[in-house]
């Protein structure tokens, strides 16, 4: 248990420098890859490893790589998605800031595997200090011959460019990211064509999350089978979980996929339990976009078994009783949290971040924010709960990009599991609007 693929050396003093990273065995994977492996052999190992995209959608990385079109004479691009803006998610920030060379090493291996000679790391603009850290690390790697022309005498050339965003959650969506990288507004593109065929500058492009790319050094060093041996079922390997909210030890944890949710929340090794004197009420397991679960469903499946930290177990029961692993943005709520207020807060976020291209998303997110605001502030109408459900349903599946779904799910799930709490706000506005007032009716607190 507790394999450390990404974070083993993260606390070593000076690990952000090339020398210390190298002393800890850094860049041996680049040497092995470029000197002894063909690009296709690397793709094979990544496929065997079964790594699923860590940005949120969980799409198998090796399969994505094998879809990349390879027309003669056309450049191909690898773009690393470091936009990390999903509320509750801060793992990529943690990784890049502390151990930048791990991402750079992964970028070199992945770019080589895909045949890209110019690759981009798109970092949200707010993290300008992290951009400086990455640029410094890139300069070091280049000075040591791991980037630039004819890397390690292999004949392979690679240039890495770190690109800042400008403050827009939607640019985490891969096609919006590509638009942004081309110097435009971050409006998602219609698909198809997919980026694997027409991506950056209309050339074949792979977009992968920071954490996904960072796994490749370990996979090259130890083999895809060794990676696949960690984890559970089709949830192979380790996952970085960003833990926040009402727990004793917020932070980023690398877990083997398959740890019981209960252990992750209550064991000292991870979150260390709910803060003293309080009880566990609800969980958002994978970033603000995934359905919220009440405590009992967060810990147990409908059949009574323990729920695990894996793609399959978290989504067990569909949206009726389950949720999603998403980005691993793990937000824990105790009994002092008002679900109505939190849902309104999330709705305001999605309304603010909608790019405005499709009416269901642009208008629907606005309506949801408005209706939730009036419920929270004591002006809710009796039909408002059904209205919210209806608006969420009309957004879901009817938009160009998944931001629409991401906006609908938190609202629909909050009402599904905490309907009484919304009703209480509507029925008892003067009580519900007292400072710090929270619904204290029947619910399972753990």
């Amino acid at each position, binding site marked *: 248990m507790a394999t450390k693929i990404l974070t083993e050396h993260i606390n070593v003093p000076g690990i952000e420098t090339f020398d210390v990273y190298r002393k800890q065995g850094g860049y041996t994977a680049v040497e092995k890859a470029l000197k002894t492996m063909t690009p296709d052999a690397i793709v094979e190992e990544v496929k065997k490893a079964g790594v699923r995209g860590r940005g949120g959608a969980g799409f198998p990385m090796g399969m994505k790589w094998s879809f990349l079109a390879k027309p003669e004479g056309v*450049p191909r691009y690898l773009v690393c998605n470091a936009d*990390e*803006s*999903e*509320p*509750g*998610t*801060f793992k*990529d*920030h943690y990784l890049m800031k502390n151990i930048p060379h791990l991402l750079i090493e992964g970028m070199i291996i992945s770019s080589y595997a895909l045949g890209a000679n*110019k690759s981009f790391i798109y970092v*949200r*603009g*707010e*993290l*300008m*200090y992290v951009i*400086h850290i990455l640029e410094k690390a890139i300069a070091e790697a280049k000075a040591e011959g791991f980037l630039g022309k004819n890397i390690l005498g292999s004949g392979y050339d690679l*240039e890495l*460019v770190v*690109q*800042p*965003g*400008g*403050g*827009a*959650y939607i640019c985490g969506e891969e096609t919006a990211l590509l638009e*942004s*990288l*081309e*110097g*435009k*507004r*971050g409006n998602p593109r219609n698909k198809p064509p997919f980026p694997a065929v027409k991506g950056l*500058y209309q050339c074949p492009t792979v977009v992968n999350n920071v954490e996904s790319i960072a796994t490749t050094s370990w996979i090259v060093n130890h083999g895809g089978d060794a990676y696949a041996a960690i984890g559970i079922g089709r949830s192979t390997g380790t996952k970085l979980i*960003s*833990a*926040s*909210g*009402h727990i004793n030890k*917020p*932070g*980023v944890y690398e877990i083997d996929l398959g740890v019981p949710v209960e252990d992750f929340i209550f064991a000292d090794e991870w979150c260390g339990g709910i803060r003293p004197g309080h009880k566990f009420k609800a969980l958002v397991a994978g970033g*603000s976009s995934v359905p919220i679960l009440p405590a009992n469903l967060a810990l147990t499946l409908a059949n009574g078994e323990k729920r695990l930290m894996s793609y399959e177990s978290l989504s067990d029961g569909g949206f009726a009783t389950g949720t999603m692993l998403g980005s691993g*943005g793990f*937000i824990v*709520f105790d009994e002092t*949290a008002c679900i109505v*207020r*939190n849902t309104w*807060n*999330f709705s305001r*976020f999605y309304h*603010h*971040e909608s790019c405005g291209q499709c009416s269901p998303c642009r208008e629907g997110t606005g309506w949801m924010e408005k209706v939730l605001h009036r419920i929270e502030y004591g002006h809710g109408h009796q039909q408002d709960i059904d209205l919210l459900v209806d608006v969420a349903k009309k957004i879901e599946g009817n938009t160009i990009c998944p931001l629409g779904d991401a906006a609908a799910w938190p609202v629909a799930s909050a009402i599904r599991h905490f309907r009484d709490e919304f009703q209480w706000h509507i029925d008892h506005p003067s009580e519900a609007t007292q400072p710090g007032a929270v619904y204290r009716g029947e619910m399972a607190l753990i």
Partner: protein
Amino acid sequence: MTTETNHSAIQFTPERLERAKEIIARYPEGKQKSALLPLLHLLQEQEGWTSVEGMDYVARMLDIQPIEVYEVATFYTMFHLNPVGKHVIEYCRTGPCCLMGGEEVYAHLKTRLGIDAGQTTVDGRFTLKEVECLAACGMGPVFQIREKYYMNLTNERVDEIIDELSK
């Protein structure tokens, strides 16, 4: 707007001009528009905000239409399209930070500065801006001033920071 703009009104310092050239050179031939966001950041770092004159300067540098710059600068939240105070406090208002007491600390900050979101103190020292999740939720409440993150905020910590920046 007139086309007879004064070309020398805004100019990068020699170091930034050098940096701008490096940035433009890193994209493939003919794709220099990719440099737009980096150059807008460079502009704002120098000028404190993103003015129309500055955007026109960037447009000329990239050989694109000014409108292509305006439509981008207005899409992204990081560009201040109006003059701002010396320190812009970008306060995270999103859920996870709120769970950590973010709303209470925010109320304290507003009282302390005597301004609301979007406003600047009369002495021109502070501008307050609300932003969404800054990818530091486990260390909330959080705000950012330029490139620096201030985390695990409490009322006392906020007072210390404001005192420090008021000197």
